[in-house]
């Protein structure tokens, strides 16, 4: 693997961590407010349907998480398991695609 790619991975993981920190805070606060009077699908959909702001917010959240998590998992697997680098990389590409597609599908579904 190209060495410069590794440097970009490093930057991507730290940059997405920086991005995820405020997004997670907003997400957690939203959950606390949303469940205050009981949580229903109607209530969620009434908030998200046609709301571009929430779609962008959670779209960004999904992309950041999809980039951040596989890179972290890659480091852990590389450091702590005897798995080959190719296998670890392949798994992390799969994880990236899974998180990205499943996450974006959910964002689109509630928009």
């Amino acid at each position, binding site marked *: *693997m*190209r*060495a*410069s790619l*590794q*440097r970009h*991975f*490093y*930057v991507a993981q*730290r940059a997405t961590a920086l991005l995820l920190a405020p997004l997670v805070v907003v997400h957690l606060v939203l959950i606390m407010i949303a469940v205050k009077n009981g949580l229903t699908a109607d209530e969620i959909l009434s908030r998200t349907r046609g709301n571009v702001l929430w779609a962008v917010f959670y779209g960004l959240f999904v992309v950041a998480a999809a980039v951040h998590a596989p890179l972290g998992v890659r*480091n852990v697997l*590389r*450091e*702590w398991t005897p798995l080959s*680098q190719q296998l670890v990389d392949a798994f992390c590409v799969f994880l990236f695609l899974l998180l990205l597609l499943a996450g974006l599908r959910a964002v689109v579904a509630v928009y």
Partner: protein
Amino acid sequence: MTNKISVSIWRGKSDGEYQTYEVELRENQTVLDIVTEVQRQHEPSLAYRFACRVGVCGSCAMTVNGVPRWTCRTHVNQVTKNNSLTIGPLRNLPVIKDLVVDMKPFFKKWQTAGASFTGGKTRHDPVATISSESPGRKAADAGIECINCAVCYSACDVVGWDDSYAGPAALNRIWTLVNDERQVNKRAVLDAAFADGGCGSCHSQGNCTRHCPVELSPSESIAALKRSAFMGLPKTGAVESNKIDTGADRES
């Protein structure tokens, strides 16, 4: 007050064991003095490594009471616990015999990590004059005095569990290279520092800095390398003048 000290010294290879010797205590005695006395008076077959005895060559590092140290500059009265000493080989390196470890993996990783200088000039070019005030020189100064003793390598837990990790000394060296105005292709050097087992593997535990006998801070060098991923290569400052006054250009 007793004038003897109980010294346990590792004997054998990795499957060896500690053997205990009673050694006379003297004034201004270093741990290396103790090991030498054991070898000369008690155990002629004891293997250990030293050269300069004044903290320059970096060859006498051992584990003393569980801590990696340069033994020639470690006074016995600073480290003795309950009138006893335990001296073993450096951690994280294969034991050849007794207190001697194989340094090959340590130096091999320097090479693999790309921690060696590559200049762009020949012996026929003028010598670069680097200002002592340039930012690059100052940054390199902070890490340049490494004596290759492998104390940091031995102290590092990440080295212990991750075979691919280059270790603090190699990464500290890379930081001095990216600050060296004469180093060519610094971007490639920096990229090499981010390869698997490079600075991204450091967990910032700081054991290297805590134990470095010449008080360098590999942790800071590694942190600076990581920052370079975002900030780009550090500014080193211009070469002040790369001409040597040989007198040839002067008008006669």
